[in-house]
């Protein structure tokens, strides 16, 4: 009861300050503009560049500075007005029951509809190579997102080094295929197994860590893997990467223009699009496998244990759940799917180098999972589509892309910390609320 009262009071006070008049808004905007002026005066007002003889030169850009400060001034007025119009941001808004019902109906049909559409993509866009390539890229990230979702969304272990497993899978396939000539279908499970092994190896030391510490250690782990790949030149080729990675075959039948090729065997005219379509269905199958395994695992005791671990580790241990195996299986499962995706990436690109496995990649996959609502399979797929599609839209503005990405991450965390699309509640929970009489919680009778 006490907590509730405080809540109401604080809401009222914020409301009072929000309905303050124009002088307040102008003052706030003016202060914001002053701060912006100091922040940007040196960084944007003055541009430095190394001259031809190593001497630094500089010139002023006061026009840009003025427009940015003006933008901050105008922006803070707009934000303040919006805030007054919408009301306090902290308050949960009640959605009418009818809207909620139609939303859930939409949610039930959106998944299958999306799946059918995805299956038909190569048919609809057969002649548009660009769209097919983009679709393959999106599906790769959907698969990575679903893989990481096991670790972050289900088990609640914040992993900032997921790209390490992606790299292990990619290099495992690339090296096995180029050195021993093994086929993709033999290497795929091996890549997954190797990645899972690395997942367990990462999992062991971090068993006792939680939260932020875990995040930093996984980040360090990801960087170690990248640095080792970069510097172990004899094995991995270092910064030059591995090239000439064999393309996948349809159970031994290559998809090329040769006499043994699939086109020749089927007696149809060869087209390079065949391989793209094959890759599309391959990654779709891998992604759906990830999804199916995750959904099945979630119904098994281990999946329930993951969710329990996410909600409360101490309670989990008190209930007799073995947190060691729970964490290790989560790491291993997530890493295995990352390894599969890595092997696919290697075979699709035909060339891999350490540049593809930087921390930015990890952060991108993590952002997909978080935006997707941490645990929601459909949400992750939609988030991957939005993010990778959005990245494509900004392709022309190469340098601004990551800037916008970072801003979006901050804003979404502030606006919808549980993800834009939705949040998956635990699969099972008590439906009956326990009512406690107010006599029992009266002040002083604790």
């Amino acid at each position, binding site marked *: 009861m006490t907590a509730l009262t405080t809540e109401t009071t604080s809401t009222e006070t914020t409301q009072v300050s929000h309905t303050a008049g124009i002088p307040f808004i102008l003052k706030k905007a003016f202060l914001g503009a002053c701060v912006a002026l100091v922040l940007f005066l040196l960084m944007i007002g003055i541009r*430095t560049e190394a001259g031809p003889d190593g001497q*630094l030169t500089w010139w002023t850009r006061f026009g840009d500075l003025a427009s940015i400060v003006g933008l901050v001034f105008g922006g803070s007025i707009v934000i303040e007005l919006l805030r007054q119009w919408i009301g306090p941001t902290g308050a949960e808004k009640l959605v009418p029951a009818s809207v909620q019902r139609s939303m859930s109906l939409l949610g039930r049909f959106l998944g299958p509809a999306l799946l059918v559409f995805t299956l038909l993509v190569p048919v609809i866009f057969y002649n548009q190579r660009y769209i097919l390539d983009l679709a393959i890229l999106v599906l790769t990230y959907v698969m990575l997102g679903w893989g990481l979702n096991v670790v972050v969304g289900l088990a609640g272990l914040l992993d*900032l080094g997921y790209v390490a497993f992606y790299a292990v899978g990619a290099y495992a396939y690339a090296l096995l295929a180029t050195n021993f000539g093994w086929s993709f279908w033999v290497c795929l499970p091996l890549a997954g197994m190797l990645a899972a092994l690395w997942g367990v190896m990462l999992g062991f*030391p971090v068993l*006792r860590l939680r939260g932020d510490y875990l995040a930093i250690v996984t980040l*360090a782990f990801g960087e170690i893997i990248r640095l080792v790949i970069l510097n172990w030149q004899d094995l991995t080729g270092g910064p030059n990467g591995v090239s000439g990675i064999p393309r996948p075959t349809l159970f031994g039948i290559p998809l090329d223009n040769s006499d043994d090729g699939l086109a020749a065997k089927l007696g149809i005219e060869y087209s390079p699009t065949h391989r793209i379509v094959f890759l599309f269905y391959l990654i779709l199958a891998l992604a759906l496998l990830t999804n199916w395994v995750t959904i099945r695992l979630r119904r098994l005791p281990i999946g329930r244990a993951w969710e329990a671990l996410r909600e409360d580790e101490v309670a989990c241990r008190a209930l007799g759940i073995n947190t060691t195996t729970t964490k290790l299986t989560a790491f291993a499962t997530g890493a295995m799917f990352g390894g599969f995706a890595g092997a696919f990436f290697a075979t699709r690109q035909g060339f891999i180098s350490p540049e593809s496995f930087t921390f930015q990649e990890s952060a991108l996959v993590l952002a997909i999972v978080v935006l997707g609502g941490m645990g929601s399979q459909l949400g992750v797929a939609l988030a991957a589509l939005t993010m990778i599609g959005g990245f494509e839209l900004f392709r022309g503005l190469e340098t*601004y892309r990551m800037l916008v*990405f*970072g801003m979006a991450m901050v804003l979404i965390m*502030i606006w919808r910390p549980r993800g834009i699309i939705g949040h998956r509640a635990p699969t099972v929970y008590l439906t009956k609320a326990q009512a406690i009489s107010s006599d029992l919680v009266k002040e002083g009778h604790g």
Partner: protein
Amino acid sequence: MDYFAQQLINGLVLGSIYGLIAIGYTMVYGIVGMINFAHGDIFMIGGFIALISFLLLVSLGLTAIPLILLVVLLVAMAVTALYGWTVERIAYRPLRHSFRLAPMLSAIGMSFVLTNYSQVAQGARVKPVPPIITGGYTLHEGPEGFAVQLSNMQIMVVLVTIVLLAMFTWLVSRTRLGRDMRACEQDQTMAALLGVDVDRTISMTFVIGAALAAVAGMMYLLYYGQVDFFMGFVAGIKAFTAAVLGGIGSLPGAVLGGLAIGLIETFWSAYFSVEYKDVAAFSILIIVLIFMPTGLLGRPEVEKV
């Protein structure tokens, strides 16, 4: 032996820079309980501000080096502190009572924003500066002609670290602000009930951390003679490693951890391989967290249900 002594000096200087950054991590973690992922980038911004203000002062015709350095130091500290304040205000304060991953993710986003903002604002190329503080002493001349050098620059870095550490230890242990900080560290709700302005104290923590990072950025600029937009990432992780190694939440621990990381990195590069020096630093982070999660001077963390 001479080679060893030289590496020892180099390691201590590098460690001092890490220590200065690590103080920012350790103070923020102590009070808010989150890793300020953008702190490494604040350090990078500090380096840039120092560079630009230095260029401006030299262009204005100032020639007195000590005066220039003092002004540059003050400008860099002030502007970077404002960056620290803004980052906290925009990205962390609205999330203070959110679920525990939210501030971390927002911090990662902020780190991307700062990195790419400086790339957009100042270009991707490395910015060199000529050596500003020159001269030094030859401590010992070996028989094979290898001389142990101690440059004035190195002396300055170590001195500045010691002075700043003394100042901030005094600030935290003797002033009103320091008492508020320690109160917030123990129990924010209780501190608020007893009249401590929690928001303001947390803001001040970020401001102080950013100001120290700016000093580190300036030292880096003077010592290595260059800055670039990407230097914050690796330096940030290493400084965080230093903070963890020293025991997170402890100011002397942060400097001690910084020195340890600086020495390990320098000796690893000198005696093993330069390529794997970052691997060595990151492996130490993992090893420390496994065997000594509370660090050298830290207190054990008690988990409350």
